[in-house]
């Protein structure tokens, strides 16, 4: 009985936290006026999505997907070893690095915009078109 309740608490915690991170990040992107604050909120959305992907691939009482010598001993003795899903981890590895690359290019564009318009407020940059 108590194991079912702990599983439900963990479900709410991991999925709820990652979805809340995504929603808070989106609120920052849609509402704020400073360009650097928008890039910070994009980085929060990236972190939330990666947490959601990895928490889907978790298996109860599973271990890390590495065949270390201690796990090989257990297999030779005949105890079955349950491993966590390795495919979402491979995908998230790529996603973290690409998120960093996108952030870096975005910040370079912000520096270039600041050199031209001398402001980082998107309202004033839209006004200067006229």
């Amino acid at each position, binding site marked *: 009985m108590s194991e079912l309740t702990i599983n439900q608490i963990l479900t709410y915690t991991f999925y709820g936290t990652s979805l809340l991170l995504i929603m808070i990040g989106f609120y920052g992107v849609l509402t704020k006026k400073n360009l650097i604050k928008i890039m910070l909120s994009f980085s*929060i959305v990236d972190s939330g999505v990666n947490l959601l992907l990895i928490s889907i691939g978790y298996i109860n009482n599973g271990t890390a997907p590495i065949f270390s010598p201690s796990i090989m001993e257990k297999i030779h003795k005949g105890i079955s070893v349950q491993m966590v899903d390795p495919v979402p981890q491979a995908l998230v590895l790529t996603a973290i690095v690409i998120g960093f690359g996108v952030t870096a290019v975005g910040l370079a564009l912000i520096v270039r915009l600041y050199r031209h318009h001398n402001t980082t407020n998107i309202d004033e940059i839209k006004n200067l078109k006229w």
Partner: protein
Amino acid sequence: MTTLLTALIIIGALILIIVSIYVVSHKDLLVATIASSIISLILSAFYFVLQAPDVALTEAAIGVALTTIIFVVTIKNTKREEE
């Protein structure tokens, strides 16, 4: 997962949500950047609890060190500290 680990995870999740609201709403940009590195640190601990050591290493190295430094360099070059 034991009860102690579940309690620590819930505390970590609450800290994560509070710090992310702080990042979005605070006016001083430099403080918000340092707070976003706290998010990456707690996320790296979460990835370790979810039995994913490669992802924890990558998130700790990229999220804490490199993302913070490129944000700080950009804030320095745009001469702004407030919103």
